[in-house]
């Protein structure tokens, strides 16, 4: 536009600066309008979410996770049975079976809510126990991911931001923690704190059980290392990017650089690694519960339900099938969603 204006003018004395006064006029409204971008700019998050929404498998997994979470957190509030209530007349019922006492009530015309998944060997409704177990699994997954996110980001960004000797020392510590066998330490810790937890005055701790408390401790101590490594790597590489230099040259302060460049570039690794952390946390919890180190009785966990089902596996196989299916569904959905998030947020990693 401005060049066109300049072309029209005849060339002045060759030794002059060839300045065209027209170039220094204030822009007209029409010219200003041309600077306005027609299309709304697509931010990184929006772009990634669009890619995620196109991924059918990831969206189905997300819907399943949301549904399972809704069931796990809402159903117990109005469900007619509780996970502790025992009924000696209704032991080991199959799905949709009624005990003699309940059958008599039905014959009298009363409404009895069916045992959708039957009952266990103490006559407790199995469906509500599986729902509570699922709730435990989801809580462990989400809280562990939160712990990993918070510690990993703080540690990684300090290490990456300061660089140099601080970075070297901090990363050596990460290397050592990384090579510690985490599951063994979880087991060791839950054995060690078992007595303390069961006698603890703190209601939350005693309800959670040794396994859960030690999982959270170990996640806080050990599991954040891969997150810290990735965040540090990102921060280190972003620090050296030309666009950061460019925005510094324009006069952007550290706050703006962190907000506009560091955080958006770390979001993808944070989301990807947090999503991968959830299934592994759920695995660890169910594994410990299966060994009898997880939640305290009578609180059920999918691992302890599966473990209890082993004693009468031949007669009541469904007592294994329901918790097994439930844990498989949760972990599968989180894995597939994690894959979808990875593809959406980091197209470079795609194979």
């Amino acid at each position, binding site marked *: 536009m401005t060049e066109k204006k300049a072309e029209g003018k005849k060339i002045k004395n060759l030794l002059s600066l060839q300045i065209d006064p027209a170039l220094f006029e204030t822009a007209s409204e029409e010219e200003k309008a041309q600077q306005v971008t027609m299309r709304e700019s697509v931010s990184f998050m929006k772009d990634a979410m669009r890619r995620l929404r196109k991924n059918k498998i990831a969206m189905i997994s997300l819907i399943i996770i949301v549904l399972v979470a809704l069931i796990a957190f809402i159903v117990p509030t109005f469900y007619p049975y509780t996970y502790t209530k025992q009924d000696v007349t209704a032991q080991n019922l199959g799905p949709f079976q009624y005990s003699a006492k309940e059958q008599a009530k039905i014959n009298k015309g009363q409404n009895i809510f069916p045992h959708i998944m039957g009952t266990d060997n103490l006559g407790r409704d199995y469906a509500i126990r599986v729902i509570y177990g699922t709730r435990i699994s989801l809580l462990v997954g989400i809280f562990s991911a939160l712990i990993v996110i918070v510690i990993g980001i703080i540690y990684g960004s300090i290490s990456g931001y300061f660089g140099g000797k601080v970075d070297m020392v901090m990363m050596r510590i990460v290397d050592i923690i990384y*090579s510690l*066998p985490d599951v063994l330490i979880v087991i060791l810790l839950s054995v060690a704190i078992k007595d303390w937890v069961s006698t603890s005055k703190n209601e939350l701790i005693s309800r959670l059980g040794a396994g859960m408390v030690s999982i959270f401790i170990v996640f806080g101590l050990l599991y954040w290392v891969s997150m810290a490594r990735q965040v540090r790597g990102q921060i280190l590489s972003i620090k050296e990017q030309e666009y950061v230099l460019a925005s510094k040259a324009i006069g952007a302060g550290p706050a703006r650089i962190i907000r506009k460049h560091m955080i958006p570039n770390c979001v993808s690794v944070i989301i990807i690694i947090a999503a991968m952390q959830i299934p592994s946390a759920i695995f660890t919890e169910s*594994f410990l519960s299966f060994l*009898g180190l997880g939640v305290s009785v009578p609180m059920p966990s999918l*691992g302890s339900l599966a473990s209890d*089902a082993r004693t009468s*596996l031949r007669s009541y196989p469904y007592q294994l099938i329901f918790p097994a299916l439930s*844990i498989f569904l949760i*972990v599968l959905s989180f894995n597939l969603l994690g894959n979808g998030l990875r593809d959406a947020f980091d197209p470079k990693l795609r*194979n």
Partner: protein
Amino acid sequence: MNAKFLSYLVKRLLMAFLTIFLVIAITFFVMHAIPASPFSSEKAKSDAVIAALEAKYGFDKPVTVQFWNYLVNILHGDFGLSTGWVGNTVIDLILGGFSYSARIGFTAGIIAIVLGVILGSIAALQRDRFLDKIIQIITTALVSMPSFVMATILLLVFALQLAWLPSLGNQPGGLILPIISLSLYPMAYVTKLQRSSMLDVLGQDYIRTAKAKGVKNSQIIFKHALKNTLTPVITYAGPMMAYILTGSMVVENIFSVPGLGRLFTNSMLRTDYMMIMGVTIFLATMIILMNFIGDILYKVIDPRIDLG
């Protein structure tokens, strides 16, 4: 073997020893933070008896002295005496259990790597075709199943319902089901690794060059591609060892195999602290050494990797 590699080797070895030392320290101090003595839970013992027992096992000395003695004893292969299986040394029990666990774990590991490499290569060569999709679905399902679910379902289907295989580890053929349950997850993982690494290698220039020269497809795969695809699989050796060793705790319990995993869970039930410490340290050492071997092999096989 050049100087750079040697210095890497030494650095990595020191790191492994430091980690093992840390594991010993963590194990020792965590177990000693427990207020209860291993003898206090047992009934019908006077204070004098408990004191005598504590003196016998050296529990009456200051913690730092105990730690030093424990460390020195471990270096001599002495993990102390078991309190849950009275009259046995911890190391004898560990080695006895390990002979079973090693057999199961080693077989499971080999099966996982061999089948995983084959399946992963097939999936990569058949990319986006029917076979690839089937393999991908199966591996995704398998990595979403905890070892105890896998083992109990195998037990339910093949031992109880179909009665094809025995359900107890001490019967003939009884180790087949534990081996299968332990190998499925790592196999699926290796398949995933091998598939993406094979796809990566097949896209390299030297593969195209070989093809342009008229090398047969089978020769390209076996002579040029396969060797270069194996590096990611090798680095998985350490984590796989960790999975198999911890997984054997549930699998050995489910199939009643008298291995190290079952010993470990039993020593938790009997609150045998010396045993718990011994097994933890033993297993952790195995995992750390396997990680070390995997890392070194990785560098030996692929010299391009930076020895930073």
